């Protein structure tokens, strides 16, 4: 019975793969030339890198919804009933080597995050990459036993988690009074994008680290 099911599933997915490959090979050229449109509008976007321009300007509402989804995922994890282990330290203390390394690396990682955020305006980089580096620093600190897991985030932490979304919504709402959602006035675009990206970096770092640190707090059941 199980073998029959396996054969059925494998032949179905095999057929799916063939159809997908055929449709990729048979795909007609796109009628809309998006790269040219982005290049043509790049000067008005306030940044010099096309991907950042698309993320924060041309399709800014995607990014607005994305940070909302991230916050929602973390809230969902916090809402689950958990058997909190309390803030007791990790059972096995980390080696002094790892702790020293984590203490040395964390300031450097904050510096790298700041650089990546700033570089996003004109080369690959931006808020998401910078937030990921910040979150990596948080996870490293936790693994080295220097940062406790999150049982319930306090007031300051909650404010930090929500900053990115709130600043983004505030900018969007202010611009709504001018007419269109997230259509930056010319001349202000670069500064507004930097403000949004800086607050996004902070919140993303905290949220992504939180996704790990909240899970790390639940007690493993034997």
């Amino acid at each position, binding site marked *: 019975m199980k073998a029959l099911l396996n054969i059925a599933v494998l032949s179905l997915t095999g057929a799916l793969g063939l159809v997908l490959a055929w449709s990729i090979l048979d795909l007609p050229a796109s009628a809309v030339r998006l*790269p040219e449109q982005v290049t043509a509008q790049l000067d008005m976007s306030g940044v010099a890198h096309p991907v950042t321009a698309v*993320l924060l300007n041309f399709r800014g509402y995607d990014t607005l919804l994305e940070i909302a989804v991230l916050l929602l*995922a973390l809230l969902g994890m916090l809402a689950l009933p958990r058997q909190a282990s309390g803030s007791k330290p990790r059972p096995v203390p980390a080696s002094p080597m790892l702790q020293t390394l984590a203490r040395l690396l964390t300031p450097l990682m904050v510096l790298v995050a700041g650089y990546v955020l700033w570089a996003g305006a004109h080369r690959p980089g931006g808020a998401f990459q910078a937030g990921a580096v910040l979150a990596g620093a948080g996870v490293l600190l936790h693994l080295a036993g220097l940062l406790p897991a999150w049982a319930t985030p306090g007031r300051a932490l909650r404010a930090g988690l929500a900053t990115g979304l709130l600043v983004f919504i505030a900018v969007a709402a202010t611009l709504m009074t001018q007419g269109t959602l997230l259509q930056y006035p010319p001349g202000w675009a670069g500064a507004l994008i930097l403000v949004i990206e800086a607050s996004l970096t902070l919140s*993303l770092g905290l949220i992504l680290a939180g996704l790990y640190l909240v899970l790390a707090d639940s007690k493993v059941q034997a």
Partner: protein
Amino acid sequence: MNAPLIYALTGAALFVFGVTGLMLQAHLLRKILAFNVMGSGIFLVLVGLAQRTGIPDPVPQAMVLTGIVVAIAATALALALARQLLDQSGEMRLPEEEAGKDKLDV
């Protein structure tokens, strides 16, 4: 056959592997991993197809960047839910799955 098409076809293959794993593996951790393999395949198709004209298209690249971050959030939420199921039922599998066949049982 140029490089962008090879990326896109590899992405399609990854997607199919992911679908197969999602259907055949009972262990929830494996299902979550299979779902991530599916997602990576889709990202590869998007980025691969976006540059088949020779000029990289920044719009799909930005979409993939968004997608990666959302996939991380979804994975973390799925892991938390799986942990919850493990705490409550003691099993890392959905109730509908046949019990006692998976060697990876926690």
